[in-house]
């Protein structure tokens, strides 16, 4: 036992569906409040108080949805691939369930990023769509999500489906750096990244601060919807476990 002490206890608990179900239930109200506050506050800030761009005017305000949804669509993909890999390597059921729950959320966020991008492109570039590296790689991300979802539902056995989708998700991971560097490697209409870890943002603080609020708000919202889906998935997969039966019967009694 002593040689395993360097691993924190919660890491092992994460592997327990029951523990995950309960901890998600406890965290959900907090994350819901956080997401609600940040998203409502951030939206009002973005729409009413942030200054208009001197070139793009008020269509610039689309950035406050476009950038967070694009960032989250990619973060969600990375989480899906990592969870899939953990499921593959350690046969952790909860990791498979996380990976499965990520796919529809990521797909919807990719759609939001693509659509807000198209709507923003019309007044700014004069076109809804261009076959540009950033836009194309983002479209591929959306198709990868659809592929993962289709593959998962096409395979009857839960564990085989999880393995197959994990492999697909891991292969598709090459697309993430392509999306990130597409604006630097190829000539593009798309503007470069707003937030970089090493530099200060090029925009003034009254513009990027609400954007930061929206990005954090989207992360909180992502946590909420992921935990909701994960809890459903745990109940469904663990329906034969004693604790699920007890839980369902205790709820039906009242």
């Amino acid at each position: 036992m002593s040689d395993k002490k360097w691993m924190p206890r919660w890491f092992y608990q994460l592997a327990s569906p029951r523990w995950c179900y309960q901890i998600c239930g406890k965290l959900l109200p907090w994350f819901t409040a956080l997401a609600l506050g940040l998203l409502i506050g951030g939206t009002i800030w973005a729409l009413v108080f942030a200054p208009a761009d001197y070139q793009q005017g008020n269509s610039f305000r689309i950035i406050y949805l476009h950038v967070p949804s694009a960032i989250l669509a990619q973060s969600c993909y990375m989480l899906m691939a990592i969870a899939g890999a953990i499921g593959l390597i350690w046969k952790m059921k909860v990791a498979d369930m996380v990976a499965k729950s990520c796919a529809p959320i990521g797909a919807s966020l990719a759609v939001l990023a693509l659509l807000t991008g198209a709507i923003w492109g019309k007044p700014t570039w004069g076109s809804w769509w261009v076959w540009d590296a950033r836009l194309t790689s983002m479209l591929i991300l959306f198709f990868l999500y659809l592929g993962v979802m289709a593959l998962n539902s096409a395979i009857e056995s839960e564990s085989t489906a999880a393995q197959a989708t994990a492999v697909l998700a891991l292969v598709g991971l090459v697309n993430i750096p392509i999306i990130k560097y597409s604006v630097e490697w190829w000539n593009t209409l798309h503007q470069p990244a707003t937030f970089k870890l090493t530099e200060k943002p090029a925009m003034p603080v009254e513009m990027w601060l609400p954007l930061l609020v929206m990005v954090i708000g989207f992360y909180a919202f992502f946590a909420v919807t992921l935990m909701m889906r994960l809890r459903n998935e745990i109940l469904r997969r663990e329906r034969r476990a004693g604790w699920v039966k007890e839980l369902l019967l205790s709820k039906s009694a009242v």
Partner: protein
Amino acid sequence: MSFNSISEFLTMGGHGLYVWLSYGLGLVVILANLIVPLQAGKRLRVQLTRRLLREKQGS
């Protein structure tokens, strides 16, 4: 505040359609991601409970 009147806010300097369409879509995506799992969870609980009660009666 960067607007002087409500109508100025709504027209967004001629970009109203684009801005409001984007924010409408954002709202739809966020709400869908809450309502869909909530409904699915309710349906699942009802279904599992019903099956469980049936099994209990059968045995």
